[in-house]
């Protein structure tokens, strides 16, 4: 009996799950139905903004191919929605009129953009109808709309100072569109970074040509453009910010209504345990943006500190990989076999890396502590205390803060220091200890790091590495009468390997003869 698995949703996370299940589909162990609302097969949504500014193509974003999947035996229904789930009959009711049954069902419904409450926009959260010239930049059509505006050099307003908003703004500005970011805190990325980084970031944004409007409350959209398209964003002080395209970038919310509709418990996202099973219904699963890992055990220590859905794709992919393995074990050997797979480890807090050409920014964990906080300076017993190291050079657009406990990073933020950022992020991801001298990490971005030429006048230095000849030996040969590189080579073998030291040998000869002349 083939195990029937239904996957609801076909975004990047579902694509990874399908990839993982493919071998079992090919072998006939699993019968797989995938229902995708969009008419395209899964693509990398993370890069929709780059598509919107023309930095990549829709083809390059593809993560699956409908024809290939069909050839492998996957029943892929694109442009089809699940209307509801009949748990009693274990069936899904589809918009194409069919009602396929399932043995296991996976929610991979993702999230939808938050539509802010603005006069002029229909606030219905599940079916927002956005006026012309307003987009939430979520799918390929939204990207096409942005693309059109950028190509025409139209004025783009981004509402929201989060990661996606900033990435879109930077990309649009770099591609030549006059761009404004409107956000409501005192600096952008307020939820992730501290004031120091925020200040440096805002300055860097302005330097790249993005207009930044902070501490702003918007109340309405005006659509007085041609054919009633968007024309301005109206603020609560009555001022207006004029533009041709408004990109709403106010965060996302898990899509849980289908699960809730069939009585599956949800909080922010669909609640699942450490094996990604929904509460009380172990043959239903949720992964990616729509899932919230929080088990039913009130005493579970992991879940006490668990974070809600991160909105990042990395954790979703790890869930998809794990679940593919789990589902295959279930299909092969039943629950006993599946139980041999260790539960998915708890996610570390997500890392945010701004995908942008002009600005380098990395942030992760908690960055609220300041170096001079009392807690940090007082001696604590038992548990190692928290420490903060900081480097600020706003004049050059550079800022780093490392928050550690026992040498391990709890938070990091780095602006304008790409090598330092890359190293810190890796140390954070791996939970590795930082070097005790934190300034070592800052120096990764210093020019001295790249070149460490020994002093050219140090005669003990090896000049010819291939033959292992020191400057002193060459000087000796020159004293003995060698006056050309070939003569030195013949006498000492220096320069007889790769020849890379011929310049150095020549300098030693010249120095000698200059000395004689003087």
């Amino acid at each position, binding site marked *: 009996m083939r195990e029937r698995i239904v996957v609801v949703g076909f975004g*990047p996370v579902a694509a990874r799950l399908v990839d993982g299940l493919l071998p079992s589909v090919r072998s006939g162990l699993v019968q797989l139905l995938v229902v995708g609302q969009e008419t395209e097969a899964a*693509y*990398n949504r*993370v*890069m929709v903004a*780059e598509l919107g500014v023309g*930095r*990549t*193509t829709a*083809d*390059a974003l*593809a*993560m699956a*191919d409908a024809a*290939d999947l069909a050839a492998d035996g996957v029943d892929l229904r694109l442009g089809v929605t699940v209307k509801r789930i009949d748990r009693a009959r274990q069936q899904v009711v589809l918009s194409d009129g069919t009602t396929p049954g399932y043995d296991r069902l996976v929610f991979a419904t993702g999230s939808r953009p938050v539509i802010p409450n603005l006069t002029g926009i229909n606030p219905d959260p599940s079916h927002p109808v956005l006026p012309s010239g307003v987009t939430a930049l979520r799918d390929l059509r939204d990207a096409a709309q942005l693309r059109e505006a950028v190509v025409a050099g139209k004025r783009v307003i981004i509402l929201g100072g989060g990661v996606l908003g900033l990435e879109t703004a930077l990309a649009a500005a770099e591609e030549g569109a006059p761009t404004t970011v409107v956000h409501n805190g005192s600096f952008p990325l307020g939820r992730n970074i501290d004031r120091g980084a925020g200040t440096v970031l805002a300055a860097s944004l302005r330097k790249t040509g993005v207009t930044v409007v902070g501490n702003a409350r918007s109340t309405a959209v005006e659509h007085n453009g041609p054919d009633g398209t968007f024309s301005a964003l109206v603020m609560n002080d009555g001022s207006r910010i004029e533009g041709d395209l408004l990109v709403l970038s106010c965060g996302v919310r898990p899509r849980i209504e289908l699960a809730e509709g069939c009585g599956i418990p949800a909080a922010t996202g669909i609640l699942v345990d450490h094996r990604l099973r929904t509460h009380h219904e172990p043959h239903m699963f949720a992964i990616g943006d729509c899932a919230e890992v929080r088990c039913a055990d009130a005493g579970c220590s992991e879940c006490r500190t668990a974070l809600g859905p991160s909105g990042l*794709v*990395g954790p979703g*992919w*790890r869930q998809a*990989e794990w679940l593919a393995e789990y589902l295959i074990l279930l299909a092969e050997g039943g629950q006993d076999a599946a139980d041999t797979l260790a539960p998915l*480890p*708890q*996610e*570390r807090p997500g*890392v945010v*890396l*701004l*995908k942008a050409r002009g600005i*380098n920014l990395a942030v992760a964990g908690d960055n609220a502590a300041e170096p001079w906080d009392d807690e940090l300076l007082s001696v604590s017993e038992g548990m190692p205390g928290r420490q903060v190291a900081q480097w600020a050079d706003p004049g050059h657009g550079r800022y780093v803060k490392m928050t550690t406990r026992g040498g391990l990073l709890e938070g990091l933020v780095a602006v304008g220091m*790409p*090598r330092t*950022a*890359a*190293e810190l*992020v*890796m*140390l954070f*991801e*791996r*939970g*590795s*200890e930082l*070097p*005790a*001298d934190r300034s*070592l990490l800052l120096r990764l971005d210093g020019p001295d790091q*790249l*070149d*460490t*030429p020994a002093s050219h006048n140090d005669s003990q230095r090896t000049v010819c*590495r*291939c*033959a*292992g000849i020191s400057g002193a030996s060459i000087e000796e040969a020159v004293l003995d009468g060698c006056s050309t590189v070939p003569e030195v080579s013949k006498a000492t*073998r220096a320069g*007889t*390997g*790769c*020849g*890379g030291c011929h310049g150095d040998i020549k300098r030693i000869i010249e120095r000698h003869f200059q000395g004689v002349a003087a």
Partner: protein
Amino acid sequence: MANGAKTHCPYCALQCAMTLTPAASAQPASGAALEVSGRDFPTNRGGLCRKGWTSPSLLNHAERITEPMLRGSDGVHRPVTWDQALMLVTGAVRQTREQYGPDAVGVFGGGGLTNEKAYQLGKFARLALGTSRIDYNGRFCMSSAAAAGNRAFGVDRGLPFPVEDLDSASVIFLLGSNVAETMPPFVQHLQGARDSGGLIVADPRRSATAAFTGDGGGIHLQPTPGTDLALILGISHVVVHEGLADTEYLEARTTGYPAIVRSLAAFWPERVQSITGVPATLIRDCARRLADGARRGGSYILTGRGVEQHVDGTDTATAAINLSLLLGLPGSSRSGYGTLTGQGNGQGGREHGQKADQLPGYRKITDPAARAHVAKVWGVDESLIPGPGLPAVELLKSLGKPDGVRCLFVHGANVAVSAPDAGAVIQGLRSLDFLVVCDFFMSETALEADLVLPVTQWAEEEGTLTNLEGRVLRRRKALTPPPGVRSELWLMSRLAESLEAPSTFSDDPEAVFEELRRASAGGLADYSGIDYDMLDRGEAAYWPYLAGSSGTPRLFLDAFAHPDGRAVMVPVVPQKRSTRSAVVGSEREPLTLVTGRLLEHYQSGAQTRRVAELAAARPEALLQMHPATAVAENISAGDFVRVSNERGEVLCRVELSNSIRTDTVFLPFHFPGPGSANLLTEAVTDPVSGMPEFKSSRVRVRKAEPAHAESVLSMQGKLVMQGKEAS
């Protein structure tokens, strides 16, 4: 011999041309009987490194074995006659075969053997010993790149172009190769790229080669060990997404492009940055330079052991090939992909039947047509050729085990030092019923042998080797070997006779080569058009060299070696190991150990540690460590440390350097005993190639107690003494 013997260096795959002449009356400092001079040749242009210059000192070295040595019950090796030695070997083989079957006899070969020896060794194993159990140490270095090359291009020739093609390149991307130490004269060919700022080196260490990217020479990418595959995917992602791919080329010359695009979608630079530690800006920069170089003087992508010696080595080499195909490099006359072969005959040694799954001419042993062809050349019935055997690591794991190998021949290899998990390998050697080792010195493996047979060195023999570019070179005799020393061809010929083997086993290199020509004819590595006379005239012979043709300096100009003429792009992605954020460096073993080579030594060091000048320059294994990492463990430069994990422990001194990452330590693998790096490496292998993981063992480093330090000191003292005696 007025002008001396025109031959090539005994060591690495660059096979630098050299001339050997009898030493002048004034004895050279080394006391050697021959003098070396560099010879002008396209690969080395007259250059030699320190190893080449000092190579003759091993010919009349005091420790040279010049008689067969049999180990007595007291463990001491004593001379026996060749007649006795041959009788003992014959008896051991017969007894093992009778008691356990032919597969209980095994052969372990080497990538330093001439084509003639490698070919005849494969034939000897299958026909004279009747065993399928033959493999060689090339499995430790070239198998992953070979598997990837075969899969993508249909053929594996390290560099499918002459090495001097690199001279005019605008961009050369070296992945995991430290040529400045491993084949110094090769560095000349990087000069053009350095001058145009286009040398890109990916290495976790700021190696001597990576340092060439300084002063505007190019860029150094410093990924954390084990993340090379993700790095290459990130660069490929940029190529696809920024429209840098050569779509016309992909359309005309490859298959599999759409699946590659899909597999790359998830590897945008910022994500790759968090996996590798390489900044996204550098990943983009690298992609753009490669694409730009391809449009100007040419771009080359070259891989080395640094990216290949991993459990995902085949996939990593495949990713590098895919990147080169995206850019349209392979099969163009001024761009390409290549892998830098390591051992002297690492190329020829992997073509003519030393591998467990292979017959001469790079044929598959499971292919009925290949078997029929080779059986015909050998004049035997096809059923006499056994099927595929076990790859090296599996072969070594089987030593002394039930159903495993109980009688082993070792030729040109020092597995007690060079194999992963060397401690377990030594145990395996000790559990054998009979071990025969052919060598010129009492290597660490020879010390374990029941019988050690003295064989000729490079300057004492004729033959051919195939260098890293697939060019067949002549090795020439400059000196008569010491009286008790024999060639391995002679040995095989005598043993075949006493074992009553079918077919013929000549002891004349040229006769063996003539047979190799016929056996390779029609195979991928076809040598049928090459002969000694042609090589002696100095003609450049690149395989495939079909009879009547003029050879193939550049492969793939018209087509790849698959039936449809297209290169195959196979999507590859990292295993969870390198992407899962929850994988945390274990507290107990927080550092990653990378092993590698030093300029002064070659492979297990059995030869170079005996050259006084080289031993004096690098007498011992030093652990390279970042000062910040050392400070945390209260370790100072020169301190003795214990480097340990579950497999073993190394005792050595520390060298501090800020050219290494703080989470990584480096140990050269040339040294035996307590400094043997392979005591720490794990015998896990790539699923496709069977090649082991040498570059990412977890270790812990602690300061050693004085007692430990003393034991190491006495050990090192012995090594230094050896060096002194030699000089």
